C-alpha cells in the first residue's frame, strides 16, 4: 500500500502542502540568492515553514523554540555579522575557480536525494522504544512530557549542554576580541600630551626591535615631552629604543 496525501484530512494535508512549499522555497532562496542578506531572510522563511510542520506533528514546544532561537537569535546574529563585516556585496559568480565542481555538486545532490527518498519508502526497522517515554497518549501536554523526560532521564546531557554553552560564549569572546596592541591613545600618550602642553595627536613613534612594553612606552613619552618639539630628530634613547617626534599633520 502506497501512502497517499489524500489519506490525510483536508486541514492536515493543506497545512503540510503550504508549509512544505514555504520551507522548500526558503531553502532554494538561501542557495540561489546573490546577496547574503537575502539568503538570511530566506532562511527565516524556511525556518518558519519547518516550525509549522513541527506544530502539525505535535511538537509545539520545539516549534516555539525554533522560531525564538533560530529566527530570533541565530539569523539575527548572521545578519549582524554580515553587516559588521560589510560583506553584503554580491558574490562574483563569473570568476568561478572550479567550473566542474558545480556540476558535480548538483549530480551528487540528486544522487543523495534519490537514495534518501528510496530509503524513506522502505519499512523502518523498529526495535524497542527508547527510555524517553511516549509522546502522545499520556494525558499531558507536549511541554510536560518533554520537560519531564529532559529533567529526569536526560538530566546529565542537559547539564553538559549548559557547560557547552558557557564554553562557546568564552570562545566567541576570545576569538572576536581585538588585540590590545593596536588600540587608540593610551594613558601614557594622554599624560605626555598634558606634559608637553600641545595637542599630541600622534605622540611618538617607537623605533626599535621587539614589542615595547607599556612602561617603556611611557618612559619614551616622557622623554619626548621633555625634548620639546624638535621634529624628526631623535629625542631620546632607552634600552635600544629611539624616540622620534613625528611632524604634526
Amino acid at each position, binding site marked *: 500500500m502506497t*501512502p497517499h*496525501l489524500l489519506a*490525510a*484530512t483536508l486541514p*492536515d494535508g493543506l497545512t*503540510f502542502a503550504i508549509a512544505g512549499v514555504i*520551507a*522548500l522555497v526558503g*531553502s532554494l532562496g*538561501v*542557495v540561489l*540568492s546573490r546577496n*547574503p542578506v537575502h539568503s538570511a531572510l530566506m*532562511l527565516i522563511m*524556511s*525556518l518558519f515553514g519547518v516550525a509549522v*510542520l513541527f506544530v*502539525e*506533528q505535535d*511538537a509545539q*514546544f*520545539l516549534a516555539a*523554540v*525554533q522560531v525564538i*532561537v*533560530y529566527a530570533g*537569535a*541565530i539569523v539575527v*546574529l*548572521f545578519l549582524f*555579522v554580515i553587516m559588521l*563585516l560589510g*560583506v553584503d556585496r554580491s*558574490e562574483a559568480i563569473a570568476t568561478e575557480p572550479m567550473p566542474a*565542481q558545480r556540476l558535480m*555538486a*548538483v549530480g*551528487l*545532490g540528486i544522487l*543523495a*536525494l534519490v537514495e*534518501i*527518498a528510496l530509503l524513506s519508502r522502505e519499512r*523502518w526497522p523498529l526495535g524497542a522504544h527508547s*527510555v*524517553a*517515554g*511516549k*509522546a502522545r497518549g499520556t494525558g499531558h501536554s507536549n511541554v510536560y512530557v*518533554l520537560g519531564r523526560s529532559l529533567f529526569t532521564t536526560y538530566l546529565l546531557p542537559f547539564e553538559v*549542554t549548559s557547560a*557547552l554553552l558557557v*564554553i*562557546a560564549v568564552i*570562545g*566567541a569572546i*576570545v*576569538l*572576536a576580541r*581585538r588585540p590590545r596592541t593596536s588600540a587608540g591613545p593610551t594613558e601614557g600618550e594622554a599624560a605626555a600630551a598634558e606634559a608637553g602642553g600641545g595637542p599630541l595627536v600622534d605622540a611618538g613613534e617607537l623605533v626599535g626591535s621587539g614589542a615595547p612594553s607599556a612602561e617603556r612606552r611611557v618612559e619614551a613619552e616622557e622623554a619626548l615631552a621633555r625634548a620639546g618639539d624638535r621634529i624628526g630628530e631623535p629625542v631620546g634613547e632607552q634600552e635600544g629604543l629611539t624616540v622620534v617626534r613625528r611632524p604634526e599633520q
Partner: protein
Amino acid sequence: MSVPADFYLTLSAVMFTIGAVGLLVRRNVLVMFMCVELMLNAANLAFITFARELNDVGGQIAVFFVLVVAAAEVVVGLGIIVAIFRRRVGATADDVHVLKG
C-alpha cells in the same frame, strides 16, 4: 488522519539535499554556514517525524539538543569568521587558504 510520514521524510530529504548542494556550490562563507543550518533543520524535521510516527518523545529530545549545539556552533563559527575577515578583505572561502595569520 494526518499526513503520512513518508511525505515528511521526503520533504526532509529534499531540504537536506538543497543544503548540501548549496554548501558545495556557494563561495561566501556566511551563506555556506546558512546551508549547514538548513541541513540541521532537515534532520530536525526527520527527528520530529519519527517521534510522531513511533510515539516516542526521544526524537523531540534529540531535536532539543541539536538546537543547543547548533546555537553554540553558530556562535563559535561566526567568531572565527569575524576574526578571519578582520584582517582580510575577501569574503569567499577561496580567500582563506592559509591557516597561519
